[in-house]
């Protein structure tokens, strides 16, 4: 009979599976550790509260802003901008990326330009966007669009290039037209990769949102942290960061759920 391997042995073996409860225990431990260090630093008086607020101060800021309705108002403002920028970008990038990865002509035409723009830091465009578009919501949506669109395009083109030509050939020998092959083979085959791309770029969209809101905005989570900085309300800055983190986690979860429904066959 095989010797039962100890937990420690499993933990030290590269890529070995460990029991589920252990994974949850470790995850919880890390969170507790972070909060504990934070508590010691603040309640212990090691850090001044104008630089690092205590957990209770952040909770206090949460209840304060939640009760007067400002928090939900700013969350909604940010969410609106992120979703608008992200959705507009995705709607164009997904089909165009598929075409770019599938048709050599489209690739030849777009790739050099896209690769050039892709490496330009979006932040450097912000002054230009303000000049052109002003400081309204359109400007922030544009920043997010610019930040995500070109990355999405390149990643989705890669996904569609990765679809096996054998699958297309098989469909042709079964009577599929080129249009059939595009709609009924290439697109479903690329779908898991597309979902992954969207999930990853959604995270980037949140980052660009904050950039846009820090520079020029009159609402949103980036805006309230900017305002809080001017008033030395570090607890509000922390709250804004935490809320953005949670919203990111939440959108990620939604993407996972959609993925499981849509492309469960791939797992």
């Amino acid at each position, binding site marked *: 009979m095989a010797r039962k391997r100890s937990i420690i042995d499993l933990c030290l073996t590269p890529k070995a599976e460990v029991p589920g409860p252990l994974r949850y225990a470790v995850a919880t431990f890390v969170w507790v550790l972070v909060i504990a260090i934070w508590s010691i630093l603040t309640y212990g008086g090691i850090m001044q509260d104008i630089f690092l607020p205590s957990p209770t101060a952040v909770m206090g800021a949460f209840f304060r802003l939640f009760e007067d309705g400002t928090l939900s108002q700013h969350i909604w403002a940010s969410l609106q901008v992120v979703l608008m920028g992200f959705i507009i970008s995705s709607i164009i990038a997904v089909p165009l990326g598929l075409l770019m990865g599938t048709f050599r002509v489209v690739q030849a035409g777009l790739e050099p330009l896209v690769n050039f723009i892709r490496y330009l830091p979006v932040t450097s465009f912000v002054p230009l966007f303000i000049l052109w578009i002003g400081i309204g919501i359109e400007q922030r949506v544009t920043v997010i669009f610019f930040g995500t669109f070109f990355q999405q395009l390149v990643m989705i083109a890669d996904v569609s290039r990765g679809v096996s030509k054998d699958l297309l050939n098989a469909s042709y020998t079964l009577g599929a037209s080129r249009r059939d092959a595009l709609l009924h083979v290439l697109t*479903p085959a690329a779908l898991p990769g597309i979902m992954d791309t969207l999930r990853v770029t959604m995270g980037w969209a949140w980052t660009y949102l904050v950039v846009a809101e820090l520079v020029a905005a009159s609402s949103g989570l980036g805006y309230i942290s900017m305002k809080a900085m001017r008033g030395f309300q570090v607890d509000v800055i922390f709250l804004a960061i935490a809320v953005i983190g949670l919203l990111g986690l939440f959108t990620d979860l939604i993407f996972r759920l959609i993925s499981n429904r849509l492309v469960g066959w791939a797992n």
Partner: protein
Amino acid sequence: MSVANVLREEPVPAVTPGEAPAAKAPPLLRIKDVRLEYTTKTKTVVAIDNISIDVPDNQFAVIVGPSGCGKSSLLYLVAGLNEPTSGEILLGNEEIDGPGPDRGMVFQSYTLFPWLTVRENVEFGLKRRHVPAAEREDIVNRYLNETGLAAFHDAYPKQLSGGMMQRVAIARALANDPKILLMDEPFGALDSQTRNSMQKLLLRVWEQHKKTVLFVTHDIDEAILLGDRIYVMTARPGRLKEEVVVPIARPRNMDMVMDPSFIAVKRRILELLKNEIKDDDEH
């Protein structure tokens, strides 16, 4: 070029002369002086050098040859997935122009659509050809039963073994009722036990339909077991070396591998290939 050599050297003892050969009907598939070249950065390579093959209807035709001899390339030409540099390929009396459902194909790599269930995979071609739903279901059920897949009709390819996936690929190609079934080393990636059971299955299915098959393999036993006639190719540039008719009666079974007639054919093919394989080890 295509001279049918019905094993002159070896006497064939105690075998029922197969109902096989005798190409009296006009050939279903005519490959006429087909040549295939492709250009790499530095040179032009001749993959297939003027091959002519006539495959009669209702025959199980097998192409064997050393690896890299262009046998798969030839199959891709027949499928219309590639174009010959010169020469022509006729199915019935029509010249092949691009791929189509009249030439179903089973690939060596697994080409099931992973987002479709077994049933939906088999149904794929019928849907593309707008066959009505009720008729589709009948056809799909029939081929699922014939290939022993009925119990797995709702499974996704991910859940199947390699052998099962190739069964689905066969059912998928047959469901379209092609004029000819092209098979490109379909069992090449399978372990030997699975391979044997797939050969058995293919024999059984083929003997029911007698649909013309063009089958590519480098496995000589497989070629003789399955084929009515075997086209032996030379090493690259691929030419037709000889056409060997297999005088073994049907229905066939795995035990026939030990028959003297089987061994006679095998000896003949080995002899033909002997000079071709020696320099080709690195492939």
